[in-house]
């Protein structure tokens, strides 16, 4: 094992507010209201500290980060401090003037979420009429302004059939990168799992399509693919390992090892601005609890892959096995694996179409 370095990336969740209501939102079920958000001075301080600590990238995220009137000022500070600034957005509140200001401030990359390829599908999933058209318009502006574009598509049972059209859309938009991410079942997505879980056959088809398109589009469009891990044999290397690569700051200023870490009981999180980021990263209990491999129990503890996947996702272990120290139940070595697979297969056939939309 190499010695622990500073985080590579900081995820700045500026707000939980969002015009969209996607039923798989990665924000917690208990959304923070605008009044709990931190001010510009707080975030400027976080950016300065992160740069001094050795962070290389900052992801402005939310909720919808573009709802913050200080976004361009934060991007500018990040760029001035040498951080690679990335905006993760629904795009529906952006326009040419706002984008031009962000480009001017040094924004390097914009990741726009798409909920499908057809407006009817996409607008129903995000519960925002006219959203899809608006996203297309903003995506074109991003590349016109010389910024790099990622099309992000979260896929599930109710839009997976549109994946071929989503890939064509990314090509037509001249995106540099396409991220196809199967829903990860935490928070809102867990609540809506029976309406979202794809069946095995649809998953296998998607898998095959992505590998074909990756070859076909090599050098033109880079495709990142996040598999639905209920159907995987091995768990994902969640967050690149707990406390290994990323620090997440919530809208109210708490520093988390991942965006879902608050679901784990008994973990307490330090506040940026009160405790130095360096101290939080290297010394805080929350970041050390599941860092590395010493916290593991069997079958993880004696597994050859423990330095590869770090036992999978702690939040998923808690949600499905009731114990954050358990092997992620999507792993074939977990005693719960067959149960999870059975649940996925049975829910994929559920007669559920309606969503519980996220709302504050």
């Amino acid at each position, binding site marked *: 094992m190499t010695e622990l370095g500073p985080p*590579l*990336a900081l995820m700045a969740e500026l707000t939980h507010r969002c015009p969209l209501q996607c039923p798989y939102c990665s924000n917690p079920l208990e959304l923070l209201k605008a009044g709990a958000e931190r001010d510009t001075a707080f975030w400027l301080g976080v950016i300065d500290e992160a740069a001094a600590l050795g962070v*290389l990238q900052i992801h402005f995220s939310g909720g919808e980060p573009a709802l913050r009137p200080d976004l361009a000022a934060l991007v500018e500070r990040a760029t001035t401090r*040498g951080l*690679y600034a990335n905006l993760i957005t629904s795009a529906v509140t952006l326009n040419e003037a706002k984008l031009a200001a962000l480009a001017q401030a040094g924004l390097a990359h914009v990741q726009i979420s798409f909920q499908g390829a057809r407006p009817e599908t996409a607008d129903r999933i995000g519960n925002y009429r006219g959203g899809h058209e608006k996203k297309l318009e903003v995506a074109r502006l991003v590349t016109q302004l010389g910024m*790099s*574009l990622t099309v992000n598509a979260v896929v599930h049972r109710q839009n997976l059939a549109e994946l071929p059209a989503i890939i064509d859309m990314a090509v037509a938009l001249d995106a540099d990168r396409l991220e196809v991410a199967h829903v990860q079942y935490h928070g809102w997505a867990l609540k809506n799992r029976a309406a979202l879980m794809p069946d095995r056959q649809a998953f296998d088809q998607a898998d095959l399509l992505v590998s074909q398109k990756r070859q076909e589009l090599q*050098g033109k469009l*880079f495709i990142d693919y996040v598999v639905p891990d209920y159907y995987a044999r091995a768990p994902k290397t969640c967050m690149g390992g707990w406390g290994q690569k990323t620090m997440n700051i919530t809208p109210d200023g708490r520093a988390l090892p991942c965006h879902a870490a608050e679901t784990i009981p008994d973990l307490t999180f330090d506040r940026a601005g009160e405790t130095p980021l360096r101290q939080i990263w290297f010394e805080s209990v929350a970041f050390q609890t599941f860092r590395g491999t010493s916290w593991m129990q069997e079958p993880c503890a004696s597994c050859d892959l423990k330095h590869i996947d770090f036992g999978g996702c702690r939040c998923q272990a808690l949600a499905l096995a009731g114990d954050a120290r358990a092997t992620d139940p999507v792993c074939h070595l977990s005693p719960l694996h067959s149960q999870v697979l059975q649940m996925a297969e049975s829910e994929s056939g559920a007669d559920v179409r309606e969503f519980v939309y996220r709302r504050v």
Partner: protein
Amino acid sequence: MDPSSVPTLRRGIRRQFDATRGAHVLLGPERVIVLDDIAEAIVAQFDGHRSIAEISSHLAGKFEADANEVAADVTAFVRELVEKGLASL
């Protein structure tokens, strides 16, 4: 890979020196690559005009190294960058 093709960093990919790690890095969407000395020497030659062959012969001269070996290294590294979506030809 054609030796006459010209490698460039893709839109959105930045190369900069990182004082914390004491090395040049390539930064892109969800990508951080810390460059070792050889990788940095190669990427530093990307100017939108010079081909893989020209970069190879320049570096072979600069480091007084075997031209074939350098060409193989440069080609392999450029291929890796293209596969990772960091460079295009």
